[in-house]
């Protein structure tokens, strides 16, 4: 009986708190929900990513008093990289003044895209998510700035071609793709297959199931196939295991290239020195040798106002990328404030800001990130901003950029995006916007 009373009480309390959840937005603050995963098998990557966003927001508040005098407030919601939990977070927080979300999961992104239009919430997926959503005519609310998986896959092939001594040398080469068996991991397959037909390399796709610790069968196959190159499309603990397995079988590490989500300190450190030479994609510089990052360290952490234990992540690859997310959001907000003459921007204004995002080289320098990234410019039709891809290499201590900016094969990728987006529009009765 007591237990029953308790459960009934709990149920009543759930209803009560649900009803009482505040939906008001305090004056002159801009609200951001952060979907984090600080727990579970993806936590090693989830923590620095989340910190990067939060630390930058914190810095903007401390240093500049917010954006245009508007303080930024943010609230974390733990998803554990689980789509259902992410959706629950989204539904719970969207009414609190949310204008833009960073789902930090391709699975959650897929689920949120159909709602964005109705809720007037932009989805900013920096370097992940649904690639064909780069077509702003069909997906006005989704932004894949600055670049996408398909672009990256094509850039990798370009890089491999260059390493082999010319694109014609790719013929007959064996490339293995080890991917997280999810919407995320499968994103590059179409592009790689298409290029395989064009360039004549042999592609082997090897799936690794969630959470990714079990890869024995995968690596057995690698030993049998003896690929010339390995592309790794992993996340979380899967990366660490893959890199370790590669060193175990003595694979040449400089012929293994990870997606930009498989190229963080957390992924290579557990393998130790053996991981030396491992390469990964990225779209921004590595390290903390930039005025802004140094300043964040000073203003946020040296003043004791940061996330407890968070200072060790500052300047790491994923932290830097989290910061890029936050910069895109705040820059979009700034642009929207100017355009509409408002302080707190609403969902539609934020969307305008993201669509007209234009971070020039001068602006990057102004932010204190000279040479950190290429200029980013979105247009109505192109939400990708066409960011080029870099290759970075692990030297046993830190990541170093080892390539120039590689321009993706846009002539291959963009038609794929447009075709796929058009198919989506047709299926869902969407009339593409005119741009």
């Amino acid at each position: 009986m007591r237990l029953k009373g308790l459960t009934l009480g709990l149920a009543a309390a759930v209803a009560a708190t649900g009803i009482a959840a505040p939906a008001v937005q305090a004056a002159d603050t801009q609200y951001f929900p952060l979907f984090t995963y600080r727990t579970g098998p993806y936590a090693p990557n989830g923590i620095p990513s989340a910190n990067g966003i939060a630390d930058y927001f914190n810095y903007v508040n401390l240093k500049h008093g917010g954006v245009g005098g508007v303080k930024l407030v943010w609230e974390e919601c733990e998803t554990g990289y689980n789509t259902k939990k992410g959706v629950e977070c989204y539904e719970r927080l969207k009414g609190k003044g949310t204008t833009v979300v960073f789902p930090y999961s391709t699975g959650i992104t897929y689920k949120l895209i159909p709602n964005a239009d109705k809720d007037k919430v932009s989805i900013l997926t920096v370097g992940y998510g649904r690639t064909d959503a780069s077509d702003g005519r069909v997906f006005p609310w989704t932004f894949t700035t600055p670049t996408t998986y398909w672009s990256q896959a094509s850039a990798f092939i370009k890089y491999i071609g260059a390493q082999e001594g010319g694109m014609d040398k790719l013929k007959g080469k064996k490339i293995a793709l080890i991917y997280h068996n999810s919407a995320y991991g499968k994103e590059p397959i179409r592009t790689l297959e298409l290029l395989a037909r064009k360039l004549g390399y042999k592609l082997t796709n090897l799936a690794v199931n969630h959470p990714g610790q079990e890869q024995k069968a995968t690596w057995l196959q690698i030993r049998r196939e003896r690929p010339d190159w390995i592309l790794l499309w992993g996340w979380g603990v899967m990366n660490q295991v893959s890199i370790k397995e590669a060193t175990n079988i003595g694979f040449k590490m400089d012929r293994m290239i990870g997606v930009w989500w498989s190229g963080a300190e957390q992924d290579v450190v557990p393998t130790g020195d053996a991981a030396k030479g491992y390469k990964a994609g990225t779209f921004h510089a590595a390290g903390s040798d930039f005025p802004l990052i140094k300043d964040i360290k000073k203003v946020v952490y040296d003043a004791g106002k940061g996330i407890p234990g968070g200072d060790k992540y500052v300047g790491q690859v994923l932290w830097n990328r989290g910061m890029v997310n936050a910069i895109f959001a705040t820059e979009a907000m700034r642009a929207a404030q100017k355009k509409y003459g408002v302080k707190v921007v609403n969902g539609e204004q934020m969307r305008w800001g993201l669509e007209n995002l234009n971070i020039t080289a001068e602006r990057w320098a102004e932010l204190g990130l000279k040479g950190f990234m290429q200029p980013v410019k979105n247009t109505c039709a192109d939400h990708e901003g066409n960011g080029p891809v870099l290759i970075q290499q692990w030297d046993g201590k830190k990541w170093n950029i080892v390539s120039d900016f590689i321009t993706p094969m846009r002539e291959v990728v963009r038609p794929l995006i447009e075709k796929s987006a058009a198919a989506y529009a047709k299926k869902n009765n969407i009339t593409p916007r005119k741009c």
Partner: protein
Amino acid sequence: MFYREAGQFYTSYAKDQGIFQLRQDKYGLWGILFIAFIVVPVGLYLMVQGGLMAASTKDYLYNSIFLLLLVNSMAALGLNILTGYCGQISLGTAAFMGVGAFTAFKFSTGLNYRIQHEDDAGELVSQLVPLLPAIDNPILLVLIAGAVTAVVGVIFGLPSLRIKGFYLAVATLAAQFFLVWCFSRVEWLYDYVSSSTIQIPPLKLFGLVVTGSETVMRDGQQVTIYPAAETKYLICLSLVVFFAFVAKNLVRGRIGRAWMAIRDMDIAAQLIGIRPLATKLLAFAVSSFFCGMAGAMSLIFYLGALEGAEAFNINESFSVLFMVIIGGLGSITGSFLGAAFITLIPIFLVVVLPWLGGQFGIPVDAAMVEHIQFMVFGSLIIIFLIMEPLGLARLWQIGKERLRQWPFPY
């Protein structure tokens, strides 16, 4: 005192066979249905209109709590028929839900298959060809999903004739892994999209938008109509209520008694003339029918788009099993109580813990909530199983008896 049967007489055989023998039960049920069908939607609507609640909070209640609760109740009903009534342990519930979801998706897009050919330039051209006209009635889709899943369930139920108990659990585990593997590998199932994510196309029921959106011209202006959360909720609620009655009637009739006989002692059941083959397979079929409907509902009404391997992984199977065990094996009411318990506790903790921490000045961040949730949830399950192994349904029963005797101790 509140629950006395005294003075209630049956004057006809029909009355004697009624589901709810007591007036209190009957009125109680009507009351619950009244609340669920009328008070909740109207009340929430009025609260939003009156400014007592934000529209987004209402959406949250419907989309994240009520719909999930209904989907889980349907799945728990299904598993309870198989495990609670027929005694066959199954760890493949999520996979069967997945079959339902994918069936609904395939029929909603017309059972597409792909033909590929090379064009003159040597480029691969692929084209999707529908086999059937696409079905856009959500209820019909749910029913078809149930029917197809029932067939799949029977196939995977065949081993139950030879193996029992834990061994059967392992056999159903094989179904779980095999089917989930199919969801991410058989391209036909997800219409060959590169991400293996399925998304339900726009559906309508009686002219109301249920999924997707619709753009119409109104007063010379383009207006986009989005599905109302209430529509989804009421359709799901009707399905669950209807099939709960079906289940209740099944289990108290000849079929249900045969299931229970098999559960309690299959040799004895065989001796009194119950055919184990037909009975067990029927239990698998009916159970899978319910689970398949739950899966289709989860795709159509709750998630909209999902990834088979993630949405229907083994954890989901376990969570439905926990619902059935905590709610009460062999009880229709228990299925609902268990589903409510397992669905609401985590959400409750996420909402309440940070607030509670704030009262005592302890900052509770999102990660800590997640950790605490694991601990609280685990200990609640253990405490429950020790204190009341027969589940919430048994507690409800005890409660009813107390109500009957009150204010006397016995």
